[in-house]
């Protein structure tokens, strides 16, 4: 049984009114424990709605959402939602709107406190969680004095302190500068690799999605495509039609291919593209002085 299971999941906002809006339409998905899944989609494609189901912030209008075997709708009836939320940590887009306390360490403690953990355990959990995201030094800071990237790392620590097993990140880097974006992505990748935390990353940045081992493309509330980044990004034209993009290396590779160069069509990273081009020029050992003069 997969860790996250969605079966024919649909979600309607304001169901039964004139403004009824079907944000998710018959979505079926399974995500294994320890996976790193990126979800792509233009605005309004339903990806945020999907994310909120994983933490039972929203419940299915029809269909089933199961997290580690727990049905979210059933858990809501029995008052056991916290069991799901403790296992699935959420990080949202706006770093300013998800930190609750006026001091970093108190904020990280918020989740464990809600779970009723004894104070000593909370202290240990907070210390470990802050160390995991390299924010120990800032534990006494007020959130408004931190950079965007640092705030998002504190938000991640807040989830880790609850001993979460899965992180759902809803455009966590959209409002950050390049440095903050790099900090957050580095943290997410490290948590995935070293602690085996399941990652569901919703993003508008194709380079971030290329880091995942699976990419899901959403369009109009449905899963439009699902595969490895390599399989997905080679379909550049289709992605652009969904209002999405491809990584720069993929795009340049496809353009060169269109101009008649024999580069592979499923290039993902800069390294793959440059290596392919060098092989193409057949200079496995670098340039000799003679050819360099020849060109100059």
């Amino acid at each position, binding site marked *: 049984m997969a860790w996250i299971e969605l079966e024919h999941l649909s979600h309607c906002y304001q169901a039964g009114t004139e403004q009824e809006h079907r944000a998710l339409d018959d979505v079926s998905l399974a995500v294994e424990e320890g996976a790193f899944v990126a979800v792509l989609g233009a605005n309004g494609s339903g990806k945020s709605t999907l994310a909120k189901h994983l933490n039972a912030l929203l419940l299915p209008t029809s269909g089933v959402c199961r997290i580690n075997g727990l049905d979210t709708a059933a858990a809501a009836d029995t008052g056991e939602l916290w069991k799901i939320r403790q296992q699935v940590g959420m990080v949202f887009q706006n770093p300013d709107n998800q930190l609750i306390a006026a001091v970093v360490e108190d904020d990280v403690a918020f989740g464990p406190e809600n779970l009723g953990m004894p104070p000593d355990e909370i202290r240990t959990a907070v210390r470990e969680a802050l160390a995991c995201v390299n924010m120990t030094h800032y534990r006494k800071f007020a959130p408004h004095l931190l950079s965007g990237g640092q705030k998002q790392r504190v938000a991640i620590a807040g989830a880790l302190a609850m001993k979460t097993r899965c992180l759902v990140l809803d455009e966590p880097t959209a409002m950050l500068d*390049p440095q903050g974006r790099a900090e957050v992505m580095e943290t997410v990748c490290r948590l995935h690799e070293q602690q085996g935390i399941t990652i569901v990353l919703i993003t508008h940045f194709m380079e971030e999605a290329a880091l995942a081992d699976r990419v899901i493309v959403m369009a109009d509330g449905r899963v439009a495509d699902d595969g490895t980044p390599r399989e997905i990004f080679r379909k550049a034209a289709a992605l652009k039609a969904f209002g999405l993009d491809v990584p720069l290396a993929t795009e340049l590779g496809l353009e060169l291919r269109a101009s008649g160069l024999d580069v592979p069509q499923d290039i993902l990273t800069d390294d793959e593209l440059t290596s392919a081009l060098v092989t193409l020029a057949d200079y496995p050992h670098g340039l000799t002085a003679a050819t360099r003069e020849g060109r100059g």
Partner: protein
Amino acid sequence: MSITLKHVAYVYMPGTPFEHQALGDISAVIEEGSLTAIAGHTGSGKSTLLQQFNGLLQPTAGRVLVDDVDINPKAKKDRAAARAMRLKVGMVFQYAEQQLFEETIEKDIAFGPKSLGLSEEETAERVKEAMRLMHLDYETYRKRSPLALSGGQMRRVAIAGVLALRPKYLVLDEPVAGLDPRGREELVKTIRHLHDREHVTIILVSHNMDDIARLADHVLIMNQGRLVCDASPREAFAQENLLEGAGLKLPHVMALMKELRAKGLPVRMDCLTIEEAKREILNVLKAVKGKGGKKHAQ
């Protein structure tokens, strides 16, 4: 005509324990008709700098001239002229959609012209013009609530609200931040169009080197409150140490070309767009093969 900074310095909260020198001795010229980018890492002083352009902050030392008029005059008689010049500089803040407040898009865009005391007809005229410039259809959108739009469209409305003041210089602070890829792409095109076709001088403030590489013709780089580079994009990005020192990265295309060069393909590094990079790679591969490189595996 230009915006000229002469030895501008700015100190936050002088005389308190929180005193902090945000800008130190900055001199620069932003020419009319240019598309100037101000790059810098968060906290480099670029936000403080841009607020000098229309007098939101007044320099602690030095002068700011817009079209040769000091916008922070000492003499009282010069104040009216200075205020008029300040309004020649339109300022679009980061996440500008958050400043929308009227019930309809038309009314919101009209806020600026109305504050200037323009007549109804003149105001209506300017609203139409601003919406046209931002590619918002007047009839479709004018009666809609700005809050019912998508993020990208809301931002267009906010920019139109500034364009309705008919600024000669338009300052855009991180204009594409937070938009989805389609929204980003469309807004970049619109900015291009504003500059190339409508001849608005644009000052683009950003920490995204990719956007700067494909848009700007002049780059100012800020680091720790100082201006560390004032050059064309090609010259600026050629100084990698300087970029790194300022906490910035090479534009992605250039980084890729650099990697390619490091692996032994003698390509030029200073390609700013995918199109340029593609042409350079094709040329170099052709040249290399022609000059006796072994043919690719048969």
